[in-house]
């Protein structure tokens, strides 16, 4: 079934892409000179300074938890607690997002745990983000 353009969710970040069927993915860019990887698309390499030498790619959907913190106090209107996580994807890109599907206590969240990237309505995390789709991490 085709989504009409107006019914498609809006991407929550500049590096989120929404397909015509409503599914989503993330894009990164890789420097063809030095191999450095970045979230989203960019013109020049922040590592080696190469100009117009970046190619974009679709980010991997699996990775491992590198680091996290459990956020108990946030800005007004944000649902707490939540787990803010940094994940090293299988393709070598690092991304940040909320880790869901775990108890928000340190004992339940081992470093290095395998995770997968999933997409959910952003309003599950911030009620004001209705109509946006965001990436989250789940234990794999």
């Amino acid at each position, binding site marked *: 079934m085709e989504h009409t353009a107006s019914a498609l969710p*809006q*991407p*929550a*970040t*500049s590096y989120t892409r929404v397909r015509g069927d409503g599914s989503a993915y993330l894009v990164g860019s890789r420097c063809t000179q030095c191999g*450095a990887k*970045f*979230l989203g698309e960019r013109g020049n390499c*922040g*590592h080696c300074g190469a100009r117009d030498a970046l190619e974009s790619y679709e980010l991997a959907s699996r990775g491992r938890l*590198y*680091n*996290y*913190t*459990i*956020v*108990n*106090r*946030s*800005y007004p209107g*944000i*649902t*707490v607690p*939540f787990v*803010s*996580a*940094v994940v*090293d994807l299988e393709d070598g890109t*690092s*991304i*940040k*997002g*909320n880790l869901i599907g775990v108890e928000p206590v*340190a004992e339940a969240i081992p*470093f290095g745990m395998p995770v997968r990237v999933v997409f959910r309505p*952003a309003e599950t*995390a*911030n009620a004001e*983000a209705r109509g*946006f789709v*965001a*990436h989250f991490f789940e234990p794999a």
Partner: protein
Amino acid sequence: MADVYVTGIDMIRFGRYPDRTVVQLAAEAALGALDDCGLGIRDIEALYSGNIGETMTGQRTLQLLGQTGIPVVNCTNACATGATAFREGWTAIKAGLYDIVLCIGVEKMQPGMIVKKKVGNEPLPAEGVIGSETMPAVFGMMGMEHSRLYGTTLEQFAKVSVKNHHHSTLNPKAMYQKETPLEEVLNAEMIAYPNTKLMCSVNVDGAAAAVLMSEKKARELGLARRAARVLASALASDPWTERNLVMQDVNTVTQYAARTAYEMAGVGPGDLDLVELHDCFATAEIPHYENLGLCPAGEGGRLIDAGETALGGRIPVNVSGGLLSKGHPLGATGIANIYEIVTHLRGEAGARQVPNARIGLTHVVGLGSACAVHILEKV
């Protein structure tokens, strides 16, 4: 190039001043620094003003002190703002442009959490949806990475708060003079794991100012006796590192600035008598022991356990109380750190004096990131 001396320096007591303006606080600190070396505003050849919250703060400060028409540079560099203003003054004297300059850092803060301004072209505010960008969360992750690498514990991070709160009981210019036992730190409200409320720096109002001089002028005016020589002034921006764009890396930028500073000064970490480093959160202090070379990588936890960084220890750190307890008025912090070091080099630090202090180091990090390291020596 000529040596640069700090000849006059002062800070106001950090606290809350709801009835006073930013520039009134700046002017009070500036007059304190001028009085400290017996000069007046007409002696000053240029002003470097550090402040984040307002604009043209330097010029408006001069409106309260004397509008002499001198060059004024307004600096902003996040939490490295004050140190950057100080360094701009140092640079100008090094270049031979002036013999006497004034550097001021000042800030008025709102109590509670700093809310980051939205930047760039992101469609949504990221907070709470794409993880967290609050300062406690950013520095919570800094501590968690250290735990991952070296097994550093919540208790070790909490001991940093116990130590710095204890130090500030000896500092009449600190926001707080209150002991916080380990249990109290651990049982305080959890803000972003592992940082509890008592492991977060205090947002306060404050101002600090320094008069910098060429060595020649300081000697000519007979001000060398209480002066401190600036052995090194180093500033670094964050280099590209693997995860820097999703997890702020304040370690590498600190290592860069520290290396530059030690090379410039011709001294090493073992030559230092005391350090004022950027303990914006308790989790930051232990990694910075290592970044500044006070101990090898991975031994920061041991350092706090052994009391080596407490007053009376091998290398006292943040004897002022640090940002955790003296308070952290962003733009003022860099110069307030230098005030603390100079006060010890002069032997005027009272109950918290580090005995026979001859060389001290200051360190600040502005997230995003800027790191400034200064090394000062008793003349």
